[in-house]
């Protein structure tokens, strides 16, 4: 399966999904003009990848801001991971937030509520 790479813009995050290592990274603020159009290929890729993934799938997120559409799309991805986890697949999310923005931790915790797969929340130093 091909990797998925999308470059960051001022309003959309960088996406780097590696189908060999199982490391899926989304980094940057997310408020694209057409959120669902932006996330459609990402969600589709995750869905397809989970069908064939054998080893651990680690979704690493560092997204300081998300608009409402992006929040919804991210929850769709988490749903896919939750289903995979229920089917016995090894999945995890690592949510990184900027140390200087403690409220971001609350946001991450809100996301992780009701999810049963490992959801790690890590503070990273601000640039």
């Amino acid at each position, binding site marked *: 399966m091909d990797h998925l790479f999308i470059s960051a813009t001022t309003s959309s995050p960088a996406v780097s999904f590696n189908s060999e290592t199982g490391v899926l990274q989304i980094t940057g603020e997310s408020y694209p003009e057409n959120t669902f159009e932006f996330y459609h290929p990402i969600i589709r890729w995750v869905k397809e990848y989970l069908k064939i993934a054998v080893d651990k799938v680690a979704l690493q997120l560092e997204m300081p*801001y*998300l*608009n*409402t559409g992006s*929040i*919804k799309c991210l*929850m769709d991805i988490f749903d896919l991971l939750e289903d995979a986890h229920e089917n016995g697949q090894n999945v995890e999310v690592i949510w990184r937030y900027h140390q200087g*923005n403690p*409220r*971001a931790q*609350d*946001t991450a915790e*809100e*996301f992780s*509520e009701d999810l049963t797969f490992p959801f790690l929340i890590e503070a990273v130093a601000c640039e």
Partner: protein
Amino acid sequence: MSNHTDEHEMQMRLSVLAEQYGEHPLFEELQHLTQQYHRLERRLNKVARIGDMMQSQIMELNQKLEQKASSDTLTGLLNRAGAYQRINAVASYLFREQQPFALLLLDLDYFKQINDSFGHQTGDRILKELAAELQRNLRGYDCCARWGGEEFLVVLPDSSQESMLSVAQKILQGIRQLQMPTEWTQNLTASIGCYLCLEPEAIDDSIRKADLAMYQAKAQGRNQLVIYEPAMEKTRVVL
């Protein structure tokens, strides 16, 4: 009504319906759709909660940015832009309430020589100490700003000529006691232009009048305060 109550009520109604229509082929479908509805509702609530959190974060960041844009990074006082905003707000309130306010425009004497002789680091330290000294002499609702390089503007709401002069004197005295490099044999001094604004006028005019008085203080030998007089308009001082 909370969503929890909604959900509970719907469950109750379903239980009542179950007694009558439990065997109906569509009843199972109804139960399934109800569950789906609640799942989507919980999801929508979650999106809204996270959206609100994001919104709050933006508001806080905006406030920090606004504060940063109106502050002087060296002294922590308001910068010129911040001061304009604050003075305009204060002045329009005081004009409405028919309360006078005073402006003090302060310029450090011989600051260029101090900077040239001892370097910018020493100059910056002095400016920071001066800012702290100004704040020590002001009330909580007075406003103090770094107006330019070594120029500071003080706004004293609800002031009289007497209280204006008293504050200006205290500031002058405090400045003379600030610690200077040992090689500098004189005390640090400043020239202050004072203006008491009694009637509504453009804020730029008020500042200009304090400025004229400050230039007069410089011309009269520095290290003193001078009160604005209309006659100064005709005899503009050129230093």
